[in-house]
Structure formats: C-alpha cells, structure tokens
C-alpha cells in the first residue's frame, strides 16, 4: 500500500484568513441576508454571530433539536405518559413491546414507556440543576480567586485540589452516603464535585484579564472592584466556564444513572433509567426480554450524545479560539 505524500496538506494552513472567511460564509444564504434587518437586531449582534457559527455544525443542530424535544417531554410529561409509571400490574410482567405498552413492561408490570418519559423529566431536573449550581459557585469563587489573589486565592485553590482528589464516582457516593438518598442530595453531590473545575477555568481567564489594559482603564476612572468584575471581566471571561458547565449536563445525567444503577442516590419510588437497567440485570440473557435494558439505555445514550453535540457546537461558536 502506498501512502500519499503528507506534505500535500501543508499549503492548506497558509490560506489567508479573508479567503477562509468568505469561503465559509458565502454558501450560507441566510447569513448574507441578515444585514438587511441589522438595525432591529443590533443589540444582539454577538448572539447572532454565535448562532450563525453554530448553524454550520450540523451535528450540533441535531443535538439542539433533540435537547429541545427532551425539554418538551420533560415539561409535558404528565399529559404524555399513558400510564402512571409506578402503577403495577402483576398479571402483565416483563412483556415485550406491544400496542398497549410501546416499550413493554418491567418486572412488576409497570409501563416502561411512561417510566422512561418520567425519567426524562428527572434527568433534565438533575442535569440543569447541577449545571446551574456549579456554574454559579464556580464563577463566583473563580472570579474572587483570580481577581483578589493572595491568601483567598490559595485557600480556594487548595479546596478545589482536595475535592478533585476524589475519583468522581467515589466522591459522589461518599456525599450521598453522608446526606442520604434523594434527588436533591444527588444534585448537591454532583454539584460539589463539578464546581472546582468551573472555578479553576474562571480563575484562569480572570487572571489573564486582570492586568489587561481595558481593565486598567476602568480602574483608572474609578470603577469599583465589584463593577470591574461583574461588568468588565465576567462577560469576557465566562466562555470557557460556561462551555464546561454545559458539557457537564450530560456527564451529570450519566453520573446520576450510574449511582442509581448501583442502587445509590435517587430513591426507588422515582422511575430512573439507571435503576431500570439494574432491574433488567436478572433477566439479561432471557430471550425476548431485551426491551427491559435496551430502551432505558437508548434514552441515556440519546440524551448524553445530544448534550455532547450541543456543547461541541457551543464551544466552536462562542469562542472559536478554544478549539
């Protein structure tokens, strides 16, 4: 087999930036049509730029559609589910998918379709709450550490070191073990484990902006520290942290399901994908009962992949330099 000359790729990197820009933008007719309505949308110009870059990534658009769809399922869950997900029917257990029960029934005769839709709501609540909590705490502590420096910086960084010393799943188990089982306990456990990375990212970008000229300028006209951090540093430093937190939604959903799979965290009276898979384990090799683990697994995979694609798209569109 002959290998093609690798140096053939070299010239690609030397294409002038302007050429690249037009090459990327011209095939997109919507992007060129935008300037006509410029006056109206001027305030959100940056958002429009982000959206234009985001649209180029087809996978990210698919991911966004799936995420929006999941959010709708989560909100409309009480009206969509045909059965009460906890209602047992011991005469109709472990049945494969049928017209009555689209995803079949589990070992207690509960409707799997209803349980999985209910699981969507739980996953969305846990995923978004963990993201929000770790983002808020991470931004605040990271900005303080980066902007103030000194003792408070060392203190916050040592705390992040200690939290990061626990392998993720073991740390979460430990926190749940201390606080007990429950949805909020799981959310708090996962947030405790994810804020340190957010804080470190925020500290890093704050540090690099602290000495920049425009911050110096703001300081010289007498802006207070609070104003400098919230109005000048935060908008420019938020991108990496925001992207990390968003990509962490899928991770949080998987972590919740992993804990539930091990019988930890989410209580048994809430239908949860990981627990549904764990319930299917005894009948794994039984012919005709694959639906019991296939459908919850698909739900988890679709959710995590969708959020991962959206996070990828956001990373490329919010801050192209990060790639």
């Amino acid at each position: 087999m002959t290998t093609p000359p690798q140096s053939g790729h070299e010239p690609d990197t030397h294409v002038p930036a302007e050429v690249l820009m037009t090459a990327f933008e011209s095939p997109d007719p919507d992007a060129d049509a935008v300037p006509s309505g410029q006056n109206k949308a001027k305030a959100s110009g940056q958002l429009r730029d982000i959206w234009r870059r985001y649209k180029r990534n087809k996978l990210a658009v698919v991911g966004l559609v799936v995420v929006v769809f999941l959010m709708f399922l989560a909100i409309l869950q009480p009206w969509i589910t045909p059965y009460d997900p906890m209602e047992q029917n011991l005469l109709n257990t472990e049945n494969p998918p049928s017209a009555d029960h689209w995803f079949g029934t589990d070992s207690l005769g509960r409707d799997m379709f209803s349980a999985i839709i209910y699981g969507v709501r739980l996953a969305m609540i846990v995923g978004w709450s963990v993201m929000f909590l770790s983002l808020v705490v991470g931004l605040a502590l990271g900005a303080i550490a980066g902007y103030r420096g000194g003792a408070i910086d060392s203190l916050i960084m040592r705390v992040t070191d200690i939290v990061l010393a626990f392998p993720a799943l073991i740390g979460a188990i430990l926190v749940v073990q201390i606080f007990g089982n429950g949805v909020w306990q799981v959310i708090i456990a996962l947030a405790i484990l994810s804020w340190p990375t957010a804080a470190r990212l925020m500290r890093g970008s704050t540090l690099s902006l602290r000495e920049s000229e425009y911050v110096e300028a703001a300081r010289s006209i007498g802006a207070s520290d609070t104003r400098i951090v919230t109005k000048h540093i935060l908008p420019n430093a938020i991108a990496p942290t925001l992207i990390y937190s968003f990509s962490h939604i899928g991770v949080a959903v998987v972590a919740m399901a992993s804990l539930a799979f091990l019988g930890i965290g989410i209580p048994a009276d809430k239908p949860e994908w990981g627990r549904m898979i764990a319930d299917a384990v005894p009948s794994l090799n039984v012919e005709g009962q694959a639906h019991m683990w296939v459908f919850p697994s698909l739900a988890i995979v679709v959710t995590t992949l969708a959020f991962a694609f959206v996070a990828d798209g956001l990373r490329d569109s919010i801050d192209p330099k990060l790639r």
Partner: protein
Amino acid sequence: MAKFITRRLAHAVLVIIAATFLIYLGLFVLGDPFASSGEKTVPPEIQEALREKFGMNQPFFMQYLTYLQNMFTFDFGIDFEQRRDVGEMLAAAVPATARLAVIAILIEIVIGLTAGIVAAVSQYTFRDVFITIITTLGIGIPVFVIGIGLRAGLSGEWVFPAVPRSFTVETPWWQEIILPAFTLAILDAAFIARLMRGSMLEVLRADYVRTARAKGLSERKVIGKHAFRNSVIPVVTYTGVSLGVLLGGALITETIFEYQGLGFLLVRAIQQHNNPVIVPIVVFAVLTFVVLSTLVDILYAYLDPRIRLH
C-alpha cells in the same frame, strides 16, 4: 527538577491528609458507622466493641489519630455482614482489581494509540471520519450501557464465562477478565484516540517534521520516531490518571460482571451500610489516585521541561 518534585510531593501529602480527614468526618462523625440502619440491626455489644476498637469514645482529635494509625497498620476492623477481617477481604480484592486495571490499560493504549495515529495520518479521509464517529460514540455511551450490552450479548458464548457465575464452574482468570477489561477499555481508548489524533495533527504541522521529511526520511520514520515521541506526552498523562482511577476499583464494571475486586466489594458494602469496608476502600482509592496523579505530573515535567517553569 528536584525543587519541583519536592513541591509536588508536599502538595500530594497535604491533599491526602485533608482528604482522609474529610472521609473520617463524613463517615464517622456526620453518620454513625456502627448504628443500625434500615432493616439492618447491629447487636449493641458489637457496636460497643467496634467503638472501642476505633476509639469512638475518645475525644475527636484522638479519634482521628487512632483512625490514621489503624489505616497505617492495616487494621480495618471486622466486616458487619460476614464477620470477617476486612484486611483479609481487601488482600483478596486488591490483586484482582490491579490485574483488571493493568489489562484494561494495556488494551486501551494499543487500541487508542493505533486509532489515533491512523486518524491523524489520514486526516479528513474516510478512515479518519470513521474513527471520529466511533470515538464520539465510545465517549458518549455510558460505561454501564456498554457493559450491560456486552454481558447480554456475549457472556456464556464462546470463551466468555456466563454471568452470574455458578459455583460449580471454575473459570481461568483470563476468561473472567476479558469482558470487564474491554468494557473498561472502550471509554478510555476513545479518549486516547482523540487525544493522540489532536496532538499528532499539531506536531505534524511543526517545522522539525517538515525538516525530517525534507531530508528524505521515510514516512514510517517521520511518524514513528519524530512525530510519535512528541505527540504521545498528553496520552502518557491521561493514561496515568486513568490508571489511578481504575486501581481504586471499577465500581460499575465489576458490579456488572460480578468480578470480585475492590469496586464490587465497595458497592456491596455501600448497599449494606458496611462502614468498616467502605472506609479503607475509599481511602485506598483516593490514595492511589493522588499518588498516580503526582507521579504523572513529575513524569510530565521530565518529558516536557517547559512545564517545570510554572
């Protein structure tokens, strides 16, 4: 370099002390480890004996010191459930977990490096796109879904032993390990492939690679010697950290395949609120994780001298 190592080691020791303190505080002070919970009742005399053993009737600071001393002398007390010496249980589980971790790491290095190099060398071709899709799936699909899928599809077929195990069938260790090792390796192999592709592409653009090609070296030498050595550094880091995680016990994989390692033991102990087993395993997991991360940092500074300047 010596200064860097000393600083890094001191840092690791501090983190370990703080982490063990937190574990102690969480499991012994915030929750009484010897209390009966749920349907479980612990006889009062055993509660008393264990309190005595762990020094629970002493002042807080003394308790903490006794706990540290017990950890150092491998005196972990008695398992609530089977009334066995916890030290013995750990001695049986640690080698099994270590074996699994090492084999999983070997598999993921071979698959990950090969896939990463192939993808980088043939960038934007069908092979590259195919590998990218596979790695995206490998990273996106949770470990327990992969494990359950493998167990449902393969266990009991060909050479793979049936799970759950039967007491009458003896299986050699390599048969037992093969499915869990692949389950563990898939996620990390995908990560390594991605890392390797990224850093390889970066290195291939460097001037010294062009020089190597210009002086007429074969493509095999350019990739295998010049590009590989410099692009493998991030993979070394990642593999070290991931070994640190795996040595602490692969909770989910070991549970799925009923593999008798630390992770299996820990999950069962947690379900039984069996604190004397939970504590040493968690401490061990944190210890291996921190020690390996530190070693990786030092190795990284050795491999890439630019790092030492920070």
